[in-house]
C-alpha cells in the first residue's frame, strides 16, 4: 500500500532519499561531493542547494582491457607498462599534453633516483624517458661517476646548479628535464606502445557495478563518453575517481608539510645570467636586500637557473602557496590568481632593480597548477612511517624508492620499499591507484609522492593489470613473483 506525502512521492522514496541526503551531508563534511541529488529536488530537479541531473544514456566510445585516467607520471608508467604487456590500453588526459607535473606543472625535475651510495634505485620507464631526453640533450644531471660522491668541490658545484642534486652533502642522481621535449617524447612513447590516448579528456567518474570498476566516464569537447575496461587505473594524482568508486580515502595533511602547499611555477626568459652572477658576486649584500624587498612587496625572492642546453637565459621560479585543499576549485582559482599577481610583482621588481633582468620577460606560467597532495586511498596495505624505518622489503615489493629526504633517518635507512598492495583500494575490485594517492600515511606521502615515485608505481600497476587480464585472475590474486620478474626484465630495480 503506497501512501503519498505532500510532495507527491512515496514514503519509501522519501526515506531512501532522506538517507542518501544524510549520507551526502556526512560525506560533504568529509570534504567531498557525491553525485546524488537531494530529496526536495526530486520533482523540480533544481533547488538552491543541489540539482538533480536527469538520467541519461552515455555513449561508449571504446572498450579496452585497461583504462588509465590521468596522463601524468603515474599514468604514463601505467599505460606504457600495460600496453607493452599486451593489454589493450586507453589513456585519458585532461590537458593537451602528457607528463602532468613534470611538464605542464613546470616541475621539470625528476629527483631522487639514486641513494646516498650513488646506486640508482629507480630506473624502468623513468630512465627510458631520461635516455630519450638525453638523445636530444634535453636533460641535465650529475655525471654518473659522481653519484654518491661527498667530495666537497663536487658537492659545491652541483649544489650551485640545483639543490636537488645534493642530499646530506652527497651528490645524488636527480634530473632536470626539458618540458616541451618531454611532451613530445611521451606522446611518441604512447604511440609506439599503441596506447589509445585521449587528450583534452577529463575522466570524471568510474563506472561501477557494485564494488567492481567497469570503466570510466570522461568529458570532452565530444561530450560525455564512456570507456569500458576490465581494469581501471586511477592515475589522477589526487585520486579523483575514489569518491565515486566508493573507496575509502584520507585527506588529512598537516599544515606544516611540504605536500600541504600548491606551487605556482613560472619561467623568466632573456635573463643575462652572466651579468646577474657578476652582480651577485660583487654586490652580495645589496642583492640580499633586494630579495628581502621583493618578498616584502609580495613577490618571490629566489629562482633556479635552467641548466639545460641553450637555456642559459631562462630561470625557473617555484613559489609555494598554502591552501585549505588542493581539490577545491575555489582554492585552485584563488592561488592561480594570486600566483599571477605575485609573479608580476616579482618580475617588475627584478626588471627594475636586478642587473641581468633588464630585458627579461615572463615566458610561461604553469599550464597546470602545481599540486602536491590531496586524497590518499585506503588500500589493502597502507604504507606507514615504520615502513620507512626498516631494511626489510615487503614480499610483494614492486618499487624501491631512494630515501634521501629524511636527514639522519635517511642515512640509516637508505631505501623504502613499496608493496603492490598499497595500490589496491580496499573494498573495490578491478581498480588500482597508481599515483601519489597510493595508500600511505601522510608522512610517507610527504616523502614519496614525487614524479619518479609515481612513474615507478604506475609501471608496476600497468604490468599487474595486464597480468591479471591475461591470466583472468583478480588483481588481488595475481602471481607476485611473476609480476616482479616481469618488472625486473623491464629494467625496474627490485631487491633480490
Amino acid at each position, binding site marked *: 500500500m503506497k501512501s503519498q506525502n505532500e510532495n507527491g512521492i512515496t514514503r519509501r522514496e522519501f526515506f531512501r532519499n532522506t538517507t542518501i541526503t544524510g549520507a551526502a551531508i556526512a560525506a560533504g563534511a568529509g570534504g567531498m561531493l557525491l553525485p546524488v541529488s537531494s530529496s526536495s529536488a526530486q520533482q523540480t530537479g533544481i533547488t538552491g542547494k543541489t540539482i538533480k541531473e536527469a538520467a541519461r544514456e552515455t555513449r561508449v566510445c571504446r572498450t579496452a582491457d585497461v583504462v588509465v585516467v590521468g596522463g601524468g607520471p603515474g599514468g604514463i608508467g601505467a599505460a606504457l607498462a600495460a600496453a607493452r604487456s599486451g593489454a589493450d590500453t586507453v589513456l585519458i588526459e585532461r590537458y593537451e599534453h602528457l607528463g602532468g607535473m613534470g611538464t605542464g606543472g613546470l616541475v621539470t625535475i625528476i629527483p631522487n633516483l639514486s641513494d646516498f651510495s650513488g646506486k640508482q634505485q629507480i630506473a624502468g620507464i623513468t630512465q627510458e624517458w631520461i635516455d630519450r631526453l638525453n638523445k636530444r640533450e634535453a636533460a641535465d644531471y650529475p655525471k654518473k661517476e659522481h653519484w654518491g660522491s661527498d667530495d666537497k668541490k663536487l658537492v659545491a658545484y652541483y649544489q650551485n646548479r640545483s*639543490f636537488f642534486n645534493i642530499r646530506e652533502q652527497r651528490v645524488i642522481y636527480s634530473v632536470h628535464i626539458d618540458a616541451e621535449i618531454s611532451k613530445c617524447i611521451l606522446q611518441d612513447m604512447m604511440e609506439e606502445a599503441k596506447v589509445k590516448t585521449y587528450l583534452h579528456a577529463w575522466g570524471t567518474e568510474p563506472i561501477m557495478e557494485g564494488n567492481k570498476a567497469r570503466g570510466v566516464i570522461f568529458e570532452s569537447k565530444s561530450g560525455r563518453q564512456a570507456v569500458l575496461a576490465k581494469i581501471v587505473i586511477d592515475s589522477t594524482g589526487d585520486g579523483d575517481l575514489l569518491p565515486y568508486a566508493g573507496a575509502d580515502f584520507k585527506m588529512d595533511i598537516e599544515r606544516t*608539510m611540504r605536500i600541504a602547499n600548491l606551487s605556482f611555477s613560472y619561467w623568466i626568459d632573456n635573463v643575462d645570467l652572466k651579468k646577474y652572477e657578476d652582480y*651577485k658576486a660583487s654586490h*652580495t649584500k645589496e642583492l*640580499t636586500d633586494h630579495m*628581502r624587498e621583493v618578498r616584502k612587496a609580495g613577490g618571490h625572492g629566489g629562482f633556479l637557473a635552467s641548466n639545460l642546453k641553450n637555456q642559459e637565459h631562462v630561470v625557473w621560479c617555484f613559489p*609555494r602557496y598554502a591552501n585549505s585543499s588542493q581539490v577545491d576549485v575555489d582554492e585552485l582559482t584563488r592561488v592561480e590568481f594570486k600566483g599571477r599577481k605575485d609573479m608580476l610583482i616579482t618580475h617588475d621588481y627584478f626588471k627594475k632593480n636586478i642587473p641581468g633582468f633588464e630585458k627579461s620577460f615572463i615566458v610561461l606560467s604553469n599550464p597546470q597548477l602545481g599540486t602536491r597532495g590531496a586524497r590518499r586511498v585506503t588500500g589493502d596495505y597502507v604504507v606507514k612511517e615504520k615502513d620507512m624505518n626498516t631494511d626489510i622489503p615487503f614480499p610483494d615489493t614492486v618499487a624501491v624508492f631512494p630515501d634521501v629526504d629524511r636527514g*639522519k633517518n635517511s642515512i640509516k635507512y637508505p631505501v623504502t620499499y613499496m608493496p603492490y598492495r598499497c595500490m589496491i583500494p580496499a573494498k573495490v575490485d578491478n581498480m588500482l591507484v597508481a599515483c601519489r594517492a597510493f595508500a600511505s600515511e601522510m608522512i610517507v606521502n610527504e616523502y614519496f609522492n614525487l614524479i619518479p615515485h609515481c612513474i615507478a608505481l604506475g609501471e608496476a600497476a600497468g604490468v599487474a593489470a595486464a597480468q591479471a587480464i591475461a591470466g583472468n585472475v583478480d588483481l588481488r590474486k595475481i602471481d607476485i613473483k611473476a609480476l616482479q620478474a616481469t618488472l625486473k626484465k623491464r629494467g625496474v630495480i627490485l631487491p633480490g
Partner: protein
Amino acid sequence: MNRERQNMRLYVRLGCLLITILLLLPLPFWVYSSRIFVQASPFVTICTILAGGALWLGSILGLLFFIISLFRKRFFCRHVCPVGLILDTVSGIRPSVKPWWKGSPLIGRYIVFLTLAGAIAGYPIFLWMDPLALLNSAFNVYKASNLSSVIISISGMVILLLLSLTSGNLWCACICPLGATQDILDDTASFCRRFIKKPETDAKVKNGYKELLPSTRRVFMAIAAGVGLAILTKKVGHAESRDSLLRPPGAIKEDEFTGLCLRCGNCVRACPSGIIHPDTGSSGVLGFFTPVLRFNKEYCNENCNACTMACPSGALKNLNLEQKKRYVIGIARVDMSLCLWGMSDCNTCIRACPFEAIKITWDEEAYESYPAVDPLKCNGCGACEAYCPTGDIKAIRVWKQIKTN
C-alpha cells in the same frame, strides 16, 4: 764553561727543537701534544692559574720549569726554548749587529708584572706574547685556507725573526716575558738565599730589594697598571652586544676570553671542520687574532670536542662530549625573506640539524608555513647555516644569544 758542556747543551737544545717540531706537526699520535707544548711555558702556566684558567697535565711541566728557574738562572732559555735556539741562529747570521738597546729598561719584566697583576684581576693582558704561543701559532700555516690566515699565523714569529736580524738578541734579553719570568724568579730566589745565609751581615741584602727589583716604583706602577687595565678592558673593551660574534664551544665570558686567549692557534688547528678562524677585527681591537667561528662551509660537529681539549690557557674550558653538546654557541635564526622553503621544496636545514631543533611551523595569520628554530634544542652548531643553499648570505644563521635579564 768547557767546550764539551757547551756542545752538550747544544744537543739538548736541538733535541728540544726536534721534540717541539714533532709535537707541533700534525702527527696523529697524541691530540694534546701542542697543548702540553704551550703549557710548558712557566709564564703561561702561572698566569693562567692566577686567572682561574686551566690546570692540567701540561701545567705540571710549566710548574716544573718554574721551580727549576728558581735554582738555575734562565734554565728554560738555555736548555729548552726552541724559539731561543731559532732566534740565536738567525741573529748569528749578522754577528756585526751592535746591541743598540743595551742599557734600555728591561721591558719584559714590566710586561710580566703587568700581566701577572692583570691575571689576578682576571685579564692577563700580554699573555699572548709568550714565545711558545707565537711559535705554536706559526705551525698553523698548514691549516690556513687563505692568505690572511697564513699572515696571521706566522706574523708573531716573523716579527721575532726580524727583530733578531736587526737587533741581535733584543727579544730574548729584553722583551720576552718568558725570559723575564725566569729572571724575576732567579732574582727573587737569590735574594732569599742570601737573606737566609747571612741575614745580618750582608750589606747587599739590606739594600737588596734594589737589586731584586730594578725600580720599586716602576714595578708598583706596572702592577697597578696591570690591575687597572684589566678592570678597564673588562669593563669597556668588549662589544658583548655584537651578536654575530661566535666563539668556539667552551669559551669563557667574552670580557675574559680575549685576555686569557693566547692566540696560540691550537683550537684552529684542532678543529677537524676548519670552522675556527683567527679574527681580524670583528671582535674589536682586544680580540685581534682570537678564534671566531664561521659556518660558511662546515659546522661544529656534535661528536667533536677537539678545540676545547686543545686549549692550553682555559679560555676554552675543557668539555667532554656531553657537556659540549649542551654548550650553547648561539641560536640559529631564519631570515624568511631569503629562505627557500617558500620558494621550492628546500628543507636542507631541517635535515641538517643534528638536534632536530628546526621544525616547520604554521602561521595562521600570515597563512603560510615556515621553518622555526626551537631555542631549547638549538646549540648553535651551525649545521643549518653551513648547508643552507642560499649562497653567500645564508637564510639561516647562528647568532650569539644575547641574554636578556
